[in-house]
């Protein structure tokens, strides 16, 4: 009793998400380069990088958990993607898929950390420690932004959220939810691992953090995971605050908008240290988030 059309749709969405995710990564690098007045790499550069990593003739492994980490992360990202309504297509749907997606989007980080910890590299351990602390710090504003959304629209269902927004205007046009949007955007920066909160990978300090031991095919898997994750996160953002999308082009434009906000913020801010980041998260975004929740009651 296979529904072939559904399966083909799912595979199509996956391939589309992968390609567009890679292009987004390329756009990210290109836009940063243009902001710094450089020419920058071609937009398809991440695809070349992944190919090269796949073509490495050697992949050092540190045991089963180390191999399992990236696979787990990729699997979770794909699952999260299939829960998000992408242009009328949603494979899985439940009554509370908003919460499911919100937390599935954070789990891949745990997968990477699981693998990183088993490599035994001190830099990995440091990166994991920072990553977990960032995750703990950003839970509170993240949760508040989502609570504000749910209280306003009165539903946990993503597809219903999209339908309601198409009837009554995007979330961002509601004043209280505009505050939630600001909070969510700050958290989004940390979710993507971009500049003010790129404490986890911090290339100049702890040399890529959790990723330091990954190379070759493992790193290629992580790159793929990052592409899918980027697509899923931007789509989730677009669904929550920009009224979802009825076709792929619409979705693509909204995702680009979200991505460019992130890139512009990332390219002008330096990195927080971990204590500053935690303090920041528990101060301004939390205060704004509480105001947003109170306004929507």
């Amino acid at each position, binding site marked *: 009793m296979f529904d072939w059309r559904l399966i083909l749709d799912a595979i199509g969405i996956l391939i589309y998400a992968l390609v567009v995710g890679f292009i987004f990564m390329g756009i990210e690098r290109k836009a940063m*380069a243009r902001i710094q007045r*450089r*020419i*920058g790499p*071609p937009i398809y550069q991440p695809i070349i990088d992944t190919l090269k990593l796949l073509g490495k*003739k050697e992949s050092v492994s540190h045991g089963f958990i180390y191999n399992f980490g990236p696979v787990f992360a990729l699997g979770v990202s794909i699952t999260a993607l299939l829960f998000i309504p992408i242009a009328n297509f949603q494979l899985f749907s439940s009554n509370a898929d908003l919460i499911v997606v919100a937390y599935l989007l954070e789990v891949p980080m745990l997968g990477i950390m699981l693998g990183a910890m088993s490599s035994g590299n001190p830099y990995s351990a440091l990166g994991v420690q920072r990553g977990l602390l960032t995750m703990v710090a950003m839970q509170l504003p993240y949760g508040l932004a989502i609570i504000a959304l749910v209280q306003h629209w009165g539903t946990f269902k993503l597809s219903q959220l999209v339908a309601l927004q198409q009837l009554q205007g995007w979330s961002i046009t509601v004043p209280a939810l505009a505050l939630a949007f600001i909070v969510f955007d700050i958290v989004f920066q940390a979710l993507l691992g971009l500049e003010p909160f790129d404490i986890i990978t911090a290339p100049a300090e702890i040399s890529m953090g959790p990723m*330091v031991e990954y190379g070759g095919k493992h*790193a290629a898997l992580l790159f793929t995971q990052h592409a899918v994750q980027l697509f899923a996160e931007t789509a989730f953002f677009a669904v929550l605050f920009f009224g979802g999308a009825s076709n792929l082009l619409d979705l693509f434009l909204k995702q680009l908008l979200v991505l460019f906000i992130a890139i512009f913020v990332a390219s002008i801010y330096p990195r927080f240290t971990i204590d500053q980041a935690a303090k920041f998260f528990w101060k301004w975004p939390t205060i704004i988030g509480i105001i947003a929740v109170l306004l929507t009651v």
Partner: protein
Amino acid sequence: MAERKDFGENDGVIHYELQEFKLFEPLFKWARKKSLWIVAFCTGCGGIEMPPLATARYDFERFGIMPNPAPRMGDLFLITGYVTPKTLKRIIITYEMMQDPKYLLAHGSCPINGGVYWDSYNVVKQLDKYIPIDVAIAGCMPRPEAVMDGIMEIMRKIERGEADGWKRYRENYEYYRRNQDKLFGEGWREKEAKRWLAWI
């Protein structure tokens, strides 16, 4: 760092070319050429030539080159100047941590023949004896244009399949190992590893 047993065998290379990937080899060659990740390991005077290369004036990112701090992911190892024995230990360890295929670019006259330090007691005169060099750039210090040219040469060599330093290292491991042991004394790897064990 864990000892690698497979390095000792001289026949590693022939078995090593994964047969099933032969079909995609041209594609991978193109990808390798287009995406060289630099291991950010700056020794000697040449580290200062890297910022102009990376910034707006010369911008090596347009060729897909990216400075990458993690040796496991890196492809291109830049030796940017003179090498002392103490640095050489780190260089060898980093080079062995990198995953095949890997390329090594030596800057300036110091790694080639000692340069101005030709009579110094603690500068390694001929780097080629300890690790294989793919491309060497002459000059003291080479200008960013020269470095760019060296990188282009590496790309050309990758395309032609001549950048085979990593293969030579596997094939002639005994030779390189003997030279390294002569300089540092037997068992220097274990000694070095023991010092870091407490941190792992």
